[in-house]
């Protein structure tokens, strides 16, 4: 038994906006953006946000792990949907984690996730550290092209770690390369050359040096150097300053995903852990108002722990999106005519949400102890017509069950932010069914019998009150098949 990283996983939204679509749409105004026009960036579907991505990354990390032994959950982001409602609490509820749990939202810098991970490793408790980011960016801004949406999750604790911490260091200074305030929706950024020379190059090498010194390891011993930096040419320069080989500089995933902000250090760590061999050393750096450096040594192969999609799996689960207008609409960057059908009141009575939290947030139904029939939602009288026993049901979780499409439609009449609204009857393996929304699916792939799995998503956005409610939706299982 040893303490360290027990599991690591990620979530990247399926939609990948082609950067050339952004560049072409904005060429009339900002022709200089064309140098950033290669590759693609991950974008949230209309029903995804920091909370939903965090839930998916956490589910992936918790594959084949007991949720009962977790003592803490830390959710790191600078783009939480709620400012005063524990976002980590929503994730914990969706994951049906034990209620006796430390839960914290950690915010306000691009290195919150490395700080949270470092503190969790030092706290010595079994903890889930999740980071997710969904930044809104101005049209025709460089960050619109370089950023991406995504999440990563790390489980630390006592057990058989895949990596253990050799040393860490940190520095906190009020270096403001960019900022966003309560009053502003978008980042405001200073000149890149100044950020590189006065920021990264002054702060990071010194922090790395302290970390390596503490471990008695030299830069040349690093197999994977994971450091996000949206500013070009920074990472190789830092690596050189720290004596780290060029070949050890980890791919920053800019070409296939974009910089996922506060989540990006952990996402790079996850990708490195997926590729690393036992004995490999991984240096992780987070930058933002200072820096964190964490040095890990891999003790076992990530591939040996029970299958999960991870960053590689979710990067492979992709659909090219070339419609820049859709991206603008999903992110409320243009006001589109949503029609009168969108005006229905979406008020969520909070008392009812609380009362029904197991059903709505955790998707827990019932299993009849008399006849064994599994059903959703849980109820007083069993639905089996040959049973109808009273008060016979025990909780039965549906979120991790797969199901098959029993009937479906692609509805162009009802309001959906991304029409047509696809929904249908899902029949779960092992019993139970529910008429539910589908997401991350195109109508032409739907068929009776198609295998689906559950994902936690935004159900409705209450624009009148700024609230959003969540529920589970069905997505095709084939594009998200777990690694054996």
């Amino acid at each position: 038994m040893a303490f360290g990283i027990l599991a690591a996983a990620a979530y990247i939204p399926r939609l990948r906006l082609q950067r050339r679509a952004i560049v072409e749409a904005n060429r009339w105004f900002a022709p200089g953006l064309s140098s950033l026009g290669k590759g693609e960036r991950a974008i949230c579907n209309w029903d995804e946000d920091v909370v939903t991505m965090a839930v998916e990354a956490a589910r992936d990390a918790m594959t084949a792990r007991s949720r009962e032994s977790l003592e803490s959950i830390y959710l790191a982001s600078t783009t939480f949907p709620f400012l005063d409602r524990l976002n980590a609490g929503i994730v914990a509820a969706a994951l049906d984690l034990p209620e006796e749990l430390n839960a914290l939202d950690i915010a306000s810098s691009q290195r919150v996730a490395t700080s949270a991970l470092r503190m969790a490793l030092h706290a010595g408790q079994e903890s889930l550290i999740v980071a997710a980011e969904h930044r809104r960016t101005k049209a025709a801004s460089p960050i619109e092209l370089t950023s991406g949406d995504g999440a990563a999750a790390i489980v630390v604790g006592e057990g058989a770690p895949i990596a253990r911490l050799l040393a860490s260091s940190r520095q906190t200074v009020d270096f403001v390369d960019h900022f966003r305030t309560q009053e502003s929706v978008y980042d405001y950024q200073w000149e890149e050359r100044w950020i590189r020379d006065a920021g990264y190059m002054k702060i990071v090498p010194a922090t790395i040096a302290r970390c390596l010194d503490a471990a008695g390891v030299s830069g040349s011993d690093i197999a994977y150097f994971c450091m996000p930096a949206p500013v070009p040419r920074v990472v190789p320069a830092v690596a050189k300053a720290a004596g780290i080989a060029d070949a050890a500089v980890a791919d920053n995933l800019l070409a296939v995903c974009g910089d996922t902000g506060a989540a990006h250090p952990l996402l790079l760590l996850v990708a490195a852990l997926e590729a690393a061999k036992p004995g490999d050393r991984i240096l992780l750096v987070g930058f933002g108002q200072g820096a964190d450096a964490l040095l890990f040594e891999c003790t076992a192969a990530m591939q040996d722990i029970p299958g999960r999609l991870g960053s590689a799996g979710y990067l492979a689960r992709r659909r090219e999106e070339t419609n820049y207008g859709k991206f603008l609409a999903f992110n409320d960057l243009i006001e589109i005519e949503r029609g009168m059908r969108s005006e229905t009141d979406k008020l969520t009575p909070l008392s009812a949400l609380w009362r029904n939290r197991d059903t709505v947030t955790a998707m827990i139904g019932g299993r009849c102890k008399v006849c064994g029939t599994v059903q959703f939602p849980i109820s007083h009288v069993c639905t089996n017509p040959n049973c109808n026993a009273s008060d016979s049901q025990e909780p039965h979780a549906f979120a991790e069950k797969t199901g098959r499409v029993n009937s479906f439609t692609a509805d162009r009449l009802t309001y959906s932010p991304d029409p047509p609204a696809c929904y249908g009857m899902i029949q779960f393996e092992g019993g139970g069914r529910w008429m539910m929304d589908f997401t991350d699916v195109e109508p032409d792939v739907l068929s009776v019998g198609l295998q689906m799995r559950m994902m936690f998503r935004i159900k409705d956005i209450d624009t009148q009150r700024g609230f959003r409610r969540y529920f589970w939706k069905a997505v095709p299982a084939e594009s998200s098949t777990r690694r054996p």
Partner: protein
Amino acid sequence: MPAGIRDKVAILGMGCSKFGERWDSEASDLIVEAFSEGISDAGIDVKQIDAAWLATAIEEQHVGKSAVPLATALRLPFIPVTRVENFCASGTEAFRGAVYAVASGAADIALALGVEKLKDTGYGGLPQRGRGTLNNMVWPNLSAPGLFAQLAAAYAAKHGASRQDIKRAMAHISVKSHDNAAHNPKAHLRNRITLDAVLNAPMVAEPLGLFDCCGVSDGAACAIVTTPEIARAMGRADIVSVKALQLSVSNGLEAQHNSWDGSYFHTTRVAAKRAYQEAAIKNAREEIDIVEVHDCFSVTELVTLEDLQLSDEGRAINDVLDGFYDSGGTIPCQIDGGLKCFGHPIGASGLRMIYEIYLQILGRAGERQRKTLPRMGMTHNLGGFPHQNVCSVAIVGRYD
């Protein structure tokens, strides 16, 4: 099973307003229009009505809650009036209230009136609305076409029918209803349409195109019922009586239990079986002369014909394409145009169906009269969605 109400109640009079986009009419205007015809047909005075039932489903769009709007519109003399709502089957619920009141002896003469004023929504189709506190959290943001469309996928999967076969049968159904409504002066949509127009119409909810969906209309319909004895005493010779009146309500089985395959209406099968028993009908295909079904969507009509045992399971497509249900066919279905073209003012629809069967049995249906006078007719009034609904089946026929 109880003895039932067969021949205990007679229809004394019926009325129906013009259905359509009645931009200039309030719900109260529609109520009065239908009632004027009904009471004149019944040949009684309003003071002779002992009790009344009002059906409206989306009352928040027009009259508001309670039975007061009916009592006020007709100045009913402070009699018992009850408002009922059971999705789109509300009209038959009002009828059931009135019929049961007469059958029980609590009333000698009772009124059932259904009304809906839908065209104050601002857009086409039924109003988008909340479904209840918990349902809003866990149901899709669904529409009626989206849910009824799913019958097609499940039906095709079960019977090995191709999408094209189903689309053709559905198109035949809609073309037939438009043809029929052309002869109906009170119908909302009286234009004829072509098969090609139906098949090439814009998609509403896969595989339902625009012409697979019924119209949304304003309108009202009513029935005045009494006992056959009283009707006779009033000098009536031709009497139409209620042979059966059944309602089946989903209990969550279809929505929650995997025994339902999504290709048929469980409630309709139950209600039809009970109705045939109550009416002493042994073979519906041979004994029913005319039928009005709840054709909110063409696919609903298609699968309902099997649920009512008029077509054998898996054979409705053939019967439809063979013209079995056309106006000149063996069992005309929607001879008045149905929901599709007569229109669908929700609370009125169940009563409109009975109105049509009543006229047909009495030979008063004008241009659209079935050539051979029907003796036994059936209405099927459905509310809700395939996976959870309420289904009324009424059988009315000549009283011998």
